[in-house]
């Protein structure tokens, strides 16, 4: 993991500097203080210029006072009196000419530049040198639980970075001036800024930096598909592996939490307006956090007996420890967010009833209705929807049966249909609950697997087999109406379809049978009908999800907003958060307008 050949300059590295011409050292000691000494011309006068010899420490002493922003005309070596000014390169910060010195670092001599502008904090390497040095650090892996051990427990698999590994990884970031990673993030976290804080060992500030845009970094660092979002647009990825943004995010968030540095913001000012949020999943919680910070009173309604939505019932403990989810929710509660459990909106209260009391409503109920393939034999007893399987295991803790009362679906040979994260979660849960053979059946090829690369990798390590380019035709049952095998057909990829992925086509007469005693269908979910049954005036789009204005996420019903899976269909945690953020902003704009209008009418009434 730790590469002994790593070439990397650490923060505050002592710089041994030399004149590039006469190779004499520029380092001096003056009154027990180490300094770099130059001669320079300033307004035609020769002055002494002393710099701090530590990387990233900007202390400058001059023999005559200079004003901030002034430039020295030229640098000279005090020994050979030759000009050190470099013609070709300019300061990356302010564009001023730069002086060139040679430093010995990484056991070789490297060209290093210093800006001529007084007060400018740029010094460093040319972009080319920088790349050459930094690219040599490999992407750092997270230490993780041994694979033979972890298939017997539900503890988290990766342990997360140590601070040393985080520093190394953060050092790989090129700090691009126009960072593409930020555009790749659905909530536009200022990624270079937080990584540079990590590189400076300011982990707590780095966590705060992320939290400016993303409320739940500990969760996102674990469950975001970074390889298709921020990390996919990292420049380093062109030649090497991208910066492990997700792992760094996880590291700083864990650091902040474990070191007890989380601060609950004091909510200033109360708008006196009330917001109801339906669903305590990632989207709903984001809206709750954003709107609470703007001074609204928030009530979150959750249908189940635990908060967190998919984070609690869907994602297993070994991928996202529930203690983290509960920590984040407690944080919201401390901010003053009210949570009402066991409230199924649509039956106990309708949206119209909510609107009588609340100024706006956010619908973040997710797409909870599991899909089935409607093939022969699918209703057999031990064929589960992924939702049911995971709900039993995660929410009801069936893997601790009989300590917990909910029975555990037992399977020795398990088949999971589907290739998304949910399918991986099911397969890996099955392995952990004693299955000897788990097969994932997916109709496209490995390249199209929608699951996070890391989950597929972990799954394979744990012994999960993949039957790619295969699709179930029917389930073969025993006399007791339990499944004993799945008949599948091989597929090949044809032309790309509307989603841009190549359409799988069945290959004739290529049927084969996979034996199993438990099958899990993880092929996605549809919209849950409860919310629509009681709100007929909320329009739906052609797929049956809620129709919203994409700029504001407002539904066709005024003051009712929606986002997440109930609008887009099955997507990711961070996309739901992004949708929540858009809705919160629009909601705030609209409600502050409403408040002003209200005040105005009141004034006119007085007159």
């Amino acid at each position, binding site marked *: 993991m730790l590469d002994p050949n790593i070439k990397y300059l650490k923060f505050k590295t002592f710089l041994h500097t030399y004149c590039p011409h006469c190779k004499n050292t520029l380092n001096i000691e003056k009154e027990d203080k180490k300094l770099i000494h130059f001669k320079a011309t300033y307004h035609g006068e020769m002055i002494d210029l002393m710099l701090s010899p530590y990387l990233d420490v900007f202390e400058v002493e001059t023999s005559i006072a200079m004003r901030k922003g002034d430039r020295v005309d030229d640098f000279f070596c005090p020994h050979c009196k030759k000009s050190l000014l470099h013609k070709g390169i300019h300061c990356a910060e302010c564009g001023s000419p730069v002086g060139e010195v040679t430093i010995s670092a990484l056991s070789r001599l490297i060209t290093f530049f210093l800006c001529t502008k007084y007060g400018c904090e740029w010094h460093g390497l040319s972009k080319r040198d920088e790349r050459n040095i930094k690219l040599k650090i490999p992407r750092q892996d997270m230490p993780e639980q041994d694979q033979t051990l972890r298939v017997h427990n539900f503890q988290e698999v990766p342990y997360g970075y140590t601070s040393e590994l985080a520093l190394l990884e953060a050092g790989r970031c090129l700090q691009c001036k126009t960072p593409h990673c930020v555009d790749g993030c659905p909530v536009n976290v200022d990624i270079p800024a937080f990584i540079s804080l990590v590189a400076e060992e300011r982990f707590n500030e780095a966590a705060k930096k992320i939290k400016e845009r993303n409320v739940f970094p500990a969760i996102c660092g674990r469950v975001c598909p970074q390889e298709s979002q921020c990390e996919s647009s990292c420049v380093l990825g062109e030649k090497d592996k991208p910066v492990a943004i997700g792992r760094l995010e996880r590291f700083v968030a864990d650091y902040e939490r474990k070191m007890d540095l989380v601060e609950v913001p004091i909510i200033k000012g109360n708008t006196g307006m009330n917001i109801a949020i339906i669903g305590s999943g990632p989207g709903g919680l984001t809206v709750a956090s954003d709107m609470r910070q703007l001074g609204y009173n928030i009530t979150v309604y959750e249908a189940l007996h635990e908060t967190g939505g998919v984070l609690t019932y869907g994602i297993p403990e070994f991928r996202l420890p529930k203690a983290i989810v509960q920590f984040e929710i407690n944080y919201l509660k401390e901010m003053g967010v009210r949570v009402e459990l066991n409230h199924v909106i649509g039956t106990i209260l309708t949206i119209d009833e909510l609107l009588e009391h609340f100024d706006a409503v956010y619908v973040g109920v997710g797409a909870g209705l599991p899909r089935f393939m409607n093939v022969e034999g699918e209703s057999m007893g031990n064929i589960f*929807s992924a*939702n049911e399987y995971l709900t039993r295991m995660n929410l009801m803790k069936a893997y601790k049966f009989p300590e917990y009362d909910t029975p555990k679906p037992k399977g020795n040979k398990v088949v999971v249909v589907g290739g998304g994260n949910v399918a991986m979660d099911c397969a890996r849960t099955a392995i952990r609950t004693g299955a000897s053979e788990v097969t994932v059946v997916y109709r496209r090829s490995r390249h199209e697997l929608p699951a996070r690369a890391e989950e597929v990798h972990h799954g394979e390590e744990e012994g999960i087999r993949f039957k790619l380019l295969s699709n179930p035709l029917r389930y073969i049952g025993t006399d007791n109406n339990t499944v004993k095998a799945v008949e599948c057909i091989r597929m090949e990829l044809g032309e790309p379809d509307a989603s841009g992925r190549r359409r799988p086509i069945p290959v004739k007469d290529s049927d084969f049978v996979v034996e199993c005693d438990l099958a899990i269908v993880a092929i996605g979910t549809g919209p849950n009908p409860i919310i629509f049954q009681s709100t007929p005036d909320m329009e739906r789009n052609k797929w049956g999800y809620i129709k919203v204005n994409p700029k504001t996420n407002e539904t066709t019903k005024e003051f009712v907003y929606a986002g997440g899976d109930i609008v887009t269909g099955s997507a990711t945690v961070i996309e739901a958060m992004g949708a929540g953020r858009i809705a919160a902003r629009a909601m705030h704009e609209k409600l502050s307008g409403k408040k002003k209008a209200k005040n105005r009418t009141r004034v006119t009434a007085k007159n």
Partner: protein
Amino acid sequence: MAKGTIIRQDILAPKIAVKVRPGQFVIVRVNETGERIPLTVADKDAFSGIITLIFQVVGKTTALMRSLNEGDFLKDVVGPLGKPADVNKVGTVLMTGGGTGVAILHHIAKAFKEAGNYVIGITGARTRDMLILENEMEYICDELVITTDDGTYGEMGFVTDPLKKYLDERYDIKLVYAIGPIIMMKNVVNLTGKYDVPTMVSLNPIMIDGTGMCGGCRVKIDNETKFCCVDGPDFDGFKVDFEELMKRNSLYLQDEKDSLLFSIR
């Protein structure tokens, strides 16, 4: 009630009591390690905020509920869930219920009576001790027939016997409601099918969340997969695949025993 195996509990749940309509159910979790079980609401009192649950002690959760005393709390009660029964004035309706199915039948029958229908009730039980809500049904129904399998009370036999008699004698029965064990509902549907009388049944499949999320309660209705908790629990009896429902419901019998044994140990 019924010597300790069928229990009636009145629960203070004001928000649910205001909203619950006949045919709807709640999901109950007794304690932190408990499972979620669906229980039908037998009655409600919106004014005092009370819902009445009637259940038979069959597994661990119901046994735990029995052990609760007056003033104790349930960990969670979610509801109302499911679509309410479609109650209209149709004329004469025949309500048949067996075992604890009478509990939900009572709630629906009450609504039909209030809607101005002539209500004929047939309630059955295995034996006299298992008979529930006799007084309440007597109060609601214009006619009431009681059967017991062993003849210890009322007529001896199954609910289908008096049902057949009614169907032979009366031509004005517009609707039959059958709620009870699956085998009873199946037999009722087989019978009413011959007379071509519309028949509604209320299903009770295995359920976890009760909000349409898990699909555990899926039933075949007219060869289409429906979720009992959001599309039901009341369905057109002629379209239900009872065979499949029976097989699905027997999936966890062994686990249920294991769980009880574990808690005894």
